[in-house]
């Protein structure tokens, strides 16, 4: 069965290996530039608490802006595991569509052994290569992590356990769809769409609250969170704000607008700040600290792998009971 699995999937395995090798090459080549940028901005002194507060704040911002040029690479690294999972699972969907699984089942191979090898080997291979990429990406991200932390969406997704976890999920979705639908194209499409969709849903709606975030009411002056914290509510650049008055009641942005008017330019921004102070209104901010990296990684991995295992169990049941 091992020989057969290799013979059936050697093309996909080689393809995945080539893509992964290219990715690793890019990572190795660009890491030095990131370190040079950090040094040029004087960030190492800031991290040791030696720099001027204002200058350091600007340096962090400048690094963030420069690092944004790596966004396409980070995006590719984020969804590469889904692609690897789908590519490795596609061959099972093809077999279901063409009916060739019956050829193996008519040899002296039980369905259970067929499933174990046909699913187990690609999964192991996929975990190995996405795990390798995640390890190298974590090394590549190290300098940036020291500046902006490892929790931000984009950073968090390409490091640690998550790349192999999402690879396993995409594999399980594609295999389950292939076995039930017996059509390659819908199975592969579903694997991509549901794989990426689950990832986005977890990233935007669930991840911040896996562990209750730290929170504070920010009146004025220095932010309560540090440059490496991941701000999940309020703060600079947030899309939704919540305010708390002196009695502890929460007010929406619209409610505060009714009192303090709209922010349109620098002048109205100043007026807005004084208005907030006059009414004793503070902004509610919530954040996760980078010390929770492994805690958050473990919870998300358990969730994603749990869904994948449930799908694989359905697949095994279907192949044992329903498939002719």
């Amino acid at each position, binding site marked *: *069965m091992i*020989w*057969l699995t290799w*013979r*059936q999937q050697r093309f996909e395995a080689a393809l995945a290996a080539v893509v992964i090798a290219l990715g690793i090459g890019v990572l190795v080549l660009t890491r030095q530039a990131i370190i040079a940028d950090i040094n040029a901005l004087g960030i190492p002194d800031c991290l040791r608490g030696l720099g001027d507060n204002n200058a350091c704040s600007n340096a962090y911002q400048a690094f963030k802006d420069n690092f944004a040029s790596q966004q396409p690479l980070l995006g590719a690294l984020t969804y590469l595991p889904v692609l690897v999972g789908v590519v490795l699972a596609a061959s099972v969907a093809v077999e279901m569509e*063409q*009916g*060739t*699984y*019956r*050829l*193996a*089942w*008519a*040899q*002296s*191979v*039980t*369905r259970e052994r067929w499933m174990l090898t046909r699913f187990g080997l690609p999964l192991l291979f996929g975990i190995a290569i996405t795990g390798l990429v995640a390890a190298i990406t974590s090394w590549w991200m190290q300098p940036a992590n020291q500046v902006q932390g490892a929790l931000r969406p984009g950073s968090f997704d390409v490091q640690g356990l998550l790349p192999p976890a999402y690879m396993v999920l995409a594999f399980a979705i594609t295999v389950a769809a292939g076995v039930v639908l017996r059509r390659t194209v819908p199975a592969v499409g579903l694997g991509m769409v549901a794989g990426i969709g689950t990832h986005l849903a977890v990233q935007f709606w669930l991840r911040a609250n896996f562990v209750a975030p730290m929170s504070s009411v920010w009146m004025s002056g220095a932010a309560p969170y540090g440059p490496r914290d991941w701000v999940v509510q309020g703060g600079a650049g947030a899309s939704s704000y919540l305010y708390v008055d002196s009695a502890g009641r929460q007010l929406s942005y619209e409610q505060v607008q009714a009192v303090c008017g709209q922010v349109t330019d620098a002048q109205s921004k100043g007026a807005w700040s004084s208005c907030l102070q006059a009414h004793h209104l503070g902004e509610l901010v919530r954040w996760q600290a980078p010390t929770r990296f492994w805690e958050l990684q473990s919870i998300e991995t358990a969730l994603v792998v749990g869904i994948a295992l449930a799908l694989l169990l359905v697949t095994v049941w279907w192949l044992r*009971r329903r498939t*002719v």
Partner: protein
Amino acid sequence: MNVLEARGLGKRYGRTWALKDLTLDVPGGRIVALVGPNGAGKTTFLQLAMGLAEPSAGTVVAFGLSPRRDAAAFLPKVGYAAQEPPLFRRFSVGELMTMGSRLNPRWDGLMAKRRLQRLGIRLDRSVGSLSGGMRAQVALVLALAKMPDLLLLDEPMASLDPLARHEFMQLLMAASAEQGLTVVLSSHIIGDLRATCDYLVVLTQGRTQLVGDMDAIVSTHQRLVGPVEMVDAVDHVQEIVQVELSDRQASLLVRMRGPLLDPHWESYPVDLDQIVLAYLSRGLSDPGIDHLATKVAS
């Protein structure tokens, strides 16, 4: 000793029964012809016997082993080739043989090589480039090289030319005689079967119409020609399979249950084609007439 036993075997897909209440014993060392029209349940029966499908009702065992529950012991003993063999098209013929040798504890690689050579199928040819007949031959070589004790073949000769068909049947007969191989093959071509098969199962609409030793079937069936008004008298003693009436004469195809004593009737031998056709049309017309009758009544 029976090699394959089905008891009340049935398979339902959705609401329709592809096979219903089939009870059948296949004795060892025989070459069994499974004959029936399209949709009779031949493929379903072979899939159930191979363990590719699971019965909705009843049981099937080979060598006392359940195809699914005892799969690990069952599979090495049984060879199977499907009607349109699902081969890996991107494999070469040689790679398919490698697969066979790696996935089976018993494997006659030498036989496979010789046979492919005889058929003029090179090992380095890609399976996708073979003709339908050649692919069928490759699938049969795969099933034979597994060295099974029981070989299940679904329409093995449908895409073979007459010469290849003849040669293949010779091969099966030799394997059966020398190694005691039991073969169950489905077919709707009756012509070739008399010479090679020694056991017959006629299946229509998921039920058996006729089961038994080929020679016994041929010798116990006769055509009787006699007066129309005496048909009832024959019916008391013999089993009438088919009736053809003209003005005053009746021509009956009967299965003889006892000696023919009535001098009004003349008997003639019948060949296998006629017997099988009679049973096939009986299997088809009976439910049809019932169906029509209920339709008229309502």
